[in-house]
């Protein structure tokens, strides 16, 4: 389903950022660009200011534990003037801290906190990098693929209730 993409938009990005645009793909008629984490902030700023992607519709991550760069940071941008959606995928290694996009799209504040909460990806420059959905003292990052729900449940039950979990 993935076909390489080479439309005007991609050309403009490639012109501007060259090698930072690692790949451009179209999957089921939806375009996405795979970009390097080092240029994340510049590409984001360019997307908002020049390409007029003024809405950061969503910002999330996907965990591919067998890959060397295990996380895929996914930013879904929408442009009101052009009525166009674009996805940016940023491969990250475990421990890498990408730049925060809060300055560019203030909505990224809570979205990045949720990514940190669920995946453990810390964003540099974020004003309030702490967990948002889980309690402060929670151990582990649930949406990682190596976070075993059952193991966590049995551990909690053993610790707090003193019995073996029936799961």
């Amino acid at each position, binding site marked *: *389903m993935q076909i390489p993409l080479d439309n005007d938009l991609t050309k403009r990005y490639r012109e501007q950022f060259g090698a930072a645009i690692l790949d451009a793909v179209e999957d089921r008629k939806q375009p996405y660009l795979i970009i390097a984490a080092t240029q994340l902030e510049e590409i984001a700023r360019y997307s908002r200011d020049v390409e007029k992607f*003024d809405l950061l519709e*969503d910002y999330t991550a996907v965990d591919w534990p067998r890959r060397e760069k295990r996380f895929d940071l996914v930013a*879904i941008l929408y442009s*009101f003037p052009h*009525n166009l959606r674009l996805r940016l995928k940023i491969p990250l290694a475990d421990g890498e801290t990408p730049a925060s996009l809060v300055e560019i*799209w203030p*909505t990224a504040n809570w979205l990045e906190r949720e990514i940190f909460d669920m995946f453990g990806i810390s964003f540099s420059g974020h004003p309030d990098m702490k967990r*948002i959905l889980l309690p402060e003292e929670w151990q582990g990052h649930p949406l990682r693929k190596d976070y075993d729900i059952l193991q966590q449940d049995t551990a909690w039950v053993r610790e707090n209730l003193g019995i073996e979990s029936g799961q």
Partner: protein
Amino acid sequence: MRDDAAQKETLLGADELVLNMGPQHPSTHGVLRVKLKLDGERVRGTECVIGYLHRGVEKIAENRTYQQFAPYVDRMDYVAAVSNGLGYCEAVEKLLNVEAPPRAKVIRTIMTELQRIASHLIWLGTHALDIGALTPLFYCLREREEILKIFEKYCGARLTTHAFRIGGLQYEAYDSFEKDVERFCKDFERRIQEYVDLLTGNSIWIGRTRNVGVLSAEDCIALGASGPVLRASGVKWDLRKAQPYAAYDLYKFEIPVGTNGDTYDRYMVRMEEMRQSRLICLQAIENIPAGPILGKVGKVLKPPAGEIYHSIEAPKGILGYYIVSDGTTQPYRVRIRPPSFINLQALDKMARGHLVADVVAIIGTLDIVLGEVDR
């Protein structure tokens, strides 16, 4: 039941009070905790503590098949379950490269618009109750009862409906479906007029909602606020018109827009949206195409590896589904873009400078459902 633990924090020498609102509070619409930093009576900043209703829906999705996950989706925005189902089913259909047949699309549209009305009715009733008007709540619930009766006749459930299936619908529209919807819509115009009579021109209502919680259009887009919040700030944009899905491109309806971006405008926008939804329903039931209700989808769903992002205009805002498939029967990653979560971020900006009594009105006007905020 009020949690009025207050701590004095000295910040930069100024005497600031942190007032805690919730998580048990009659007006936070669920388990939401808001820490208000007060200076006398004015709010200087807010901090929302959420996650009381976090159930790990996205992690659950990775351990269920696509069809098994569909009922979980209703439980997020439980006030508007049908919309959630629509977004999910359409996202998976795009992933599979199938399309629901026209009859299914039209019935889906009717159900979703009825659900939009029902969701806005809950919003109106609870918002008015927070501001002190006791009666609109019961009138709104009375109308919502009619819609829920239609849902119950259609799919057996009132609240968490699981009305749609991947590929179309499972249940055929029951015999008097069109008649019921038509009767409800014909009645509803008069009922909306009741709410308008009670609230719209009421000077106390206007005094409590005008210029309260103002959000400019730039701030809305920057903060990601969508739905009626965005439209009340002056941005004439609706996903149903911009990128139509289901059968919305067949029907004529207006997009209500506000001017000031205050609570009163959001109220007017949602009232008008209810009227427009009613019109869509009336247009749709005139001509429901005949034909199959389920597309060509097998029993076992194994979408080819890849990903999709699909969003719909839910009653609360843009509801998006980002689904990554690895070729197996279970999705690799399901991400739900929750409109209430992102709209709630705007609370801080909207509440600054207002009085404590206005915070309740502002939370109400954002129309959040904690099930969706926390997932």
